[in-house]
Structure formats: C-alpha cells, structure tokens
C-alpha cells in the first residue's frame, strides 16, 4: 500500500514525463508488432495459396465404387495427405460447364466421356512437395488410374517465395526489434535522467537503493504493461480494418488475417515489461550516490 502511494507520488511529480515515455514506447512497439503481423500474414497467405494446389488423380471411366473406396483409403494412409475427394464424371461435367460459362462449348459432350477424378489435398503442401513426385508415380502405375496431374513447378515457386518472404521479413523484424529495444531503453533512461537530482538527493539522505528504486521500478512495470497492451489493442483494431479493406482481394483470404497467438502475445508483453524494468533499474542505479 505504501509502495503504491509512493509510486503515485512519484508519478504526480512528473506526469508528463511518464505519459510521454509510455506513448513513445507504445508507438515503437506498435510499429514493431505491425511488421510482425505483416510477416505472420504473408507466410499464412502463402500457405493458404499452396493448399489450393492439389493432386488430381484421373480414374478409369469404368472404375467401380469399391475400387474408388480402396484407392481413397490407400492414398489417405499417406501422413502428408489431408483429404481425398471423389468427383464422379457427371460432376466433372457440371463443374466444367460452370467454369466455361458458354454452354455451347460443351455441347454434345457426355459425362461418360470425362474421367472421374480423385482430388488429393495436403496438410502442408510445402512439406509434401518433395514426396509428391513419388506419390504421383506410384498412383500412376496403378491399374485404376489413367493419369496423375499436379502443379509441381508452382509449388516449388511458392516454396521459394515463402522462403524469400521469411528471409526479408525476419531480417526486417530483427533490425526493427533491435531499434525498438534501443529506443525503449533510451526512453526509459532519458525519462529517469530527468529524475537524476531527486535520486541523488534521496541517496544522500539515507535512503536505501531499494527504497529509491521501488517506485521507479513499479512505474516502469506499469509503463511496460500499458505500452504493450495499448500497442496490441491498436494492432488488433488495425487488423480488423485491414481485413475489411482486403476482403475479396484474394480467394485465399477467405479466413481473414491471422493475429498473434496467446504465447506470442505473452512473450511480447513480458519482453516489454522486462525491458522497461531492466532499463529503469540500470538507469536509476547509475544516479545513486553511494
């Protein structure tokens, strides 16, 4: 209770200083976390696009239901496979008609002319990419199949794009993170420099380091907590706005933008609070006169 009273008294002495430094820390964090969010979503979108790339197994037109079931079960045994969907010839024709829009193009084409298809989707297409040719080869050799088709080259290109985005974003985040740490530490240091005289005086009249630093550290803790919470709130609001703006831009964006996980949020808050506490501890320690 006494500590809270002293912390409030400390805040009352220089409210502008503490509010100002909290705002600077909030701004730095928001910028850092915004680029973190962009990185997270770029990777997410690339994965979502890759998921649309599937393996099409064209089957013999005379295939029986039992054979389709057995083949589906065989494919699903592969740990990388997320699901197998059977599209009978009638549905293939229907989908083609929807795709072409002009009904005259498919005039006279009968469903029996088109092969039924097994559409294979993968849990992580990038991981599946390497073993895809093996699986495709195995399936192609089976008597129930006519042809196996997949966009291997596109998958490779997407994989490279994902790697490139990871490299660029992580380097950017590293630089931005370093700058953020530097700015937050400097802000805390400069705000305490303003309090230098008081810290010195307190140490000269018999106050222990604990007595002097306790309210300063409490304020640093509160500053870190408020700054990180405000930055996350700003970012969450921004995420909704960006979601609204980017709606319908890409078919893969159906699920919207992803936000930080609970663990990532906890790490960010703990990191910022720890940074504020450390900065405050060392800055105030420098002004103690013992």
């Amino acid at each position, binding site marked *: 209770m006494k500590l809270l009273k002293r912390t409030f*008294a400390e805040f009352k*002495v220089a409210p502008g200083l503490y509010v100002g430094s909290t705002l600077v820390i909030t701004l730095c964090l928001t910028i850092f976390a915004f680029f973190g969010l962009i990185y997270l979503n770029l990777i997410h979108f690339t994965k979502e696009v890759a998921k649309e790339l599937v393996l099409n197994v064209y089957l013999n037109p005379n295939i029986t239901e039992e054979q389709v079931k057995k083949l589906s079960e065989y494919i699903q045994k592969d740990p990388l496979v997320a699901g197998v969907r059977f599209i009978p010839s009638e549905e293939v024709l229907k989908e083609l008609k929807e795709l072409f829009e002009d009904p005259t193009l498919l005039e006279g084409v009968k469903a029996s002319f088109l092969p039924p298809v097994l559409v294979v989707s993968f849990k992580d297409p990038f991981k599946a990419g390497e073993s895809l040719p093996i699986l495709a080869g195995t399936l192609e050799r089976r008597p129930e199949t006519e042809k196996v088709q997949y966009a291997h080259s596109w998958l490779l290109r997407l994989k490279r794009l994902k790697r490139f985005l990871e490299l660029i974003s992580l380097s950017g985040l590293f630089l931005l993170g370093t700058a953020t740490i530097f700015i937050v530490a400097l802000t805390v240091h400069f705000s305490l420099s303003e309090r230098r005289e008081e810290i010195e*005086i307190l140490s*000269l*009249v*018999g*106050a222990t380091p604990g007595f002097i630093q306790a309210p300063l550290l409490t304020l640093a803790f509160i500053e870190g907590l408020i700054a990180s919470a405000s930055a996350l709130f700003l970012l969450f609001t921004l995420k909704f706005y960006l979601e609204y703006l980017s709606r319908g831009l890409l078919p893969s964006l159906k699920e919207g933008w992803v936000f930080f996980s609970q663990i990532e949020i906890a790490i960010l808050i703990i990191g910022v609070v720890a940074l504020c506490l450390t900065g405050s501890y060392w800055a105030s320690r420098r002004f103690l006169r*013992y």
Partner: protein
Amino acid sequence: MSEILRLENVTKIYKPNIRALNGVSFSVQKGEFIFLTGPSGAGKSTLLNLIFRAERPTSGEIYFDGRPLSSYSKREIPLLRRQIGFVFQDFKLLPHRTIFENVAIPLEVLGMAEGEIRRRVLIVLEQVGLAGKEQQLVDQLSGGEKQRVCLARAVINHPPILLADEPTGNLDSKRTEEVMEIFENLNAQGTTILLATHDESLFIDRQRRILVLDEGRIINL
C-alpha cells in the same frame, strides 16, 4: 566525553593531480561544536563530503564512532548517512515537493508511521521557524527558507552529529543569527556539530573550537 569522529592522515587527490586535502588529522568529541574555516578552495567541502562518505579519501582513514568508514559496504552507507545530518551548501532539496515532503524523507526512509512523521515534522518546522508553511512548494521559497528546510531535514531524525557546509552563505545577518541560534540549541541538546564557513563573524565571539584549513592542511587546532 567520548570520541565520535577521528580523521587520520586523510588525503584527497582529484585527477589529474589536484591535492584537495593533504594529511588531515583531528578528532571530534561527542557534543562538541566545531567551526571549520578557511578560504574558498581550502578543502572544507571536500572534508565534509569525505566524512559523509559522499566521496572516498585517496589515503588515510576516517573513523565514525570508532569504526573505519572504509569498512562500510555499499549496503551500509545509507545506515551511516542516517546517523549524520548534513546541511548542504546548495540545499539539495526535492524541487517539486512541499516543505513537509522534503523534511519527512529521512523518516519515511526509516519506515515510520505517517502519524508519527507528521508529528515530528511539525515540531521541527516550528523549531526552524517554518510553522504553517508545510504545504508550500520548495520552488517558491527564498534562499533563507530553503536553508532552514535543509536544516530541518538534517535534524529530523536526531542524528548524533550534524555537518553543515556554509549554512549561512545565502542568508542576511538577521537570518544568519536565527540559523546560528538553531545550531546552538541543537548543540545544547547534545548534537555534535561540525560547521564549515569562511565567514569569521560566525565564530569570532563564540567560545568554540576552530579548525583552520588552508591548501588542504589543518594549520591551527
């Protein structure tokens, strides 16, 4: 009377090679009132800072109540300072706080109850002639008033020894007399006082021990 303070061959050299104190030795008995005098730059402030452990001597030893100051760890320095009242030449008051808050600090540091702090602060403010002004901000005070706040803060927890660095330097003759009377009263109550001043009029008519410092040496005991 027993000894409260003893300096043995204390030397302080500042970089690059400025000898502020040169082999200073003397002792102070409990209850004494000593004037430390000498021209500006003689080393008076340095000597008080060394006793207060705001600085460390280059060589020699200072004993407080029989214990060498060099044996105090960093952790123990606040405990030492609580036993030594210091009236700073530049006041060293918390500028944005009230008189009450400034004077109460040494008691807050001790973890004293609020009611007791209030009672003691009001008594000491009465003694230094600042009764009724406790809620006034230090920023708004005159030099003389600041000096008295500084004095009140130095004596609030009844330290056995009081160091004063030019405590009347900013005061007119009337205020100087008032402050000197406070020092005399404190000494009469048993507080040992070591007062540094370059103003001879402060001690000329008083039957007190005088230490004269010149170029870092005690020249007269």
